[in-house]
């Protein structure tokens, strides 16, 4: 789907996101392993990370992302009902196009169901998606 270098880069970011989420859920060793596995990159990130508040806080996501994939990071929560999340994700993605060069997210499965459609409906597509039982991480092309 994407070249290996870019895949490694995104894997590292997802590790960071997963680390935050795992730490929040009390998964210390998992978090440590994720961080160990993470690689740094020098692509000049101007990134945006969507998250749901149950999986972490903005500061934690920004810190983890910056540590593992240095650059300028902004984290946006998707609060409220799923309907609001659909429109918020769509609007954030449309706003990010042409400005940010990286658009990722760590959300729960229900939120991902609507975020996925929001991105697709705005004409976007995904680098890839990693699904687990209670969380989904993804990267969108911008």
């Amino acid at each position: 789907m994407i070249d290996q270098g870019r895949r490694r880069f995104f894997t590292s970011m997802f590790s960071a996101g997963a680390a935050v989420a795992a730490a929040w859920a009390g998964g210390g060793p998992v978090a440590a392993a994720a961080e160990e596995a993470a690689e740094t990159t020098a692509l000049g990130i101007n990134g945006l990370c969507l998250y749901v508040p149950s999986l972490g806080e903005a500061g934690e996501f920004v810190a983890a992302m910056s540590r593992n994939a240095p650059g300028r990071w902004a984290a946006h929560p998707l609060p409220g009902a799923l309907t609001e999340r659909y429109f918020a994700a769509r609007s954030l993605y449309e706003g990010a196009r042409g400005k940010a060069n990286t658009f990722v997210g760590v959300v729960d499965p229900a939120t991902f169901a609507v975020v996925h459609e929001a991105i697709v409906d705005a004409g976007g597509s995904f680098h890839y998606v990693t699904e687990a039982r209670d969380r989904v991480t993804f990267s969108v092309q911008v």
Partner: protein
Amino acid sequence: MSQFVALPKGLTEETFAKAIQEYRALLGEDRVRTDPASLQSYTKIMIADSEEHHTPSAAMYPTTLAEIQAIVRIANKYKTPLWTVSTGKNMGYGSAAPASRGQIVLDLKTMKKILHVDEELGYCLVEPGVTYYDLQEHFRKNKLNLWVDVPAPSAMASPVGNTSDRGVGYTPYGEHFLFSCGMEVVLPNGDAIRTGTGGLENGTSWQSYKWGYGPYVDGLFTQSNLGIITKLGVWLMKGPPPGGYFPFLMKFPRVEMLADIIRTLMPLRLNQIIPNACIVVNAGWEAAGYFTYDEHGRGTNRESFYKKKDSLPPEVFQQIMDKYGCGAWNFYAALYGSPEQVALNWKYVSGAFKQKFGKDVRIFTEKEAQGDPIFEYRRQLMMGGSTLQEFGLYNWRGGGGSMWFAPVAAARPSECDKQMKLATDILNKYGFDYVAEFIVGWRDMHHIIDLLYDRTQEEEMTRAHRCFDELLSTFTKNGWGTYRTNTAFMGKVAASYGPEMMRIHRALKQALDPNNILSPGKSGIDLDASVA
């Protein structure tokens, strides 16, 4: 190595490349996509089947009738199958993925024109990419007092897509195909027709008179692969005057009460005191809807109550009901009309249920249900509002797996009860929960069961597939048809309706689409497949 993600069945790479070249000459590079990233969204399925079986070879985005006609002609020339989607939100039924690998997705989401809204007679004419939300925004912007009936994922689904799959909603106009009027359809040979009175020169009643003259053909283009709907007329409700919309909820404490609930509500439904496609929802569905976050920000879901992976025992269901205050059954309906009519009808409705159930029914109107997000979600649906709350179901078990099992029952108490017990037994046998609602139609029940499972676990996915298969087989043996199904089971459902029906569908396909180019496999109709 192939330059394509997948190829249509029976086509060489060289032939397919030529076809793509021709499509690109027509639409341009941007609107004919074969790159993996562009195709990824079409493989995002929730059903228990491998993405490999449903991976498309390309996606195309036409914007006009003429482009679709030209596409169909190219498809005939190269025999490239076209899997048509409107906005592609058929989640739990196969999403936007084709029935079989290698088909080209003809994505009509870029056809977004609201062509006409008639406030006087309450109808509209729309293209496939128009969503229910787009229509509602149009009403708001133009201050039109009109309601459109919506399915649950209303904010992003389209009237054309949902009606053509014979979806249902929750207002008095809940049976969507019944309340559609007039279609424009591109046939497999590239011709375009207008159904009903649409073929009349200077006709004025295309969206107000359904039947036209001679055989009525609109049904041929629903749940079918005999044409591509490019315009659809939809009837709209006039919004009632202030005080003329009265949603309510009744909660019942025991599972065994289902038959009595149906027995009490059906006379009210048949005499139109309750005019809408009302809903009887079980505790599993209701609780999943209440997915919330606790004070630590953690989500409350099934696992919060039960750590094991098998089906929830009755005592845990009871704990869940106690926690959320929901009933074993939860009946949502609404009254519509003038405030005086509504007040009078409410006396009939509440009186009938109080008489039957006494203290065993708890009744909530808007006043008592203030702040309840699930009541609000149902209130929105029954007035054609935009909501995506139903997606909360996907957090209940987690893992992104969902398959709608959707048998129909005659709206008789004993029949609904029997279906419920049978479905519960089969689901529990495979370790899944009964999460269901009955949508009350005119004389039928759409028994909508969400088989929720963890798609990230291969074993669980296999189990879900087998469970669905057994549900289907068992319900068929009992004489219950399935009104709609997912792309992995379309052939089996088609077979359940008998060989004669399969043969007539095939004969129609042969006559109209001899090259088998439109959505092969849709509703089990595929000239390449053998017929028993």
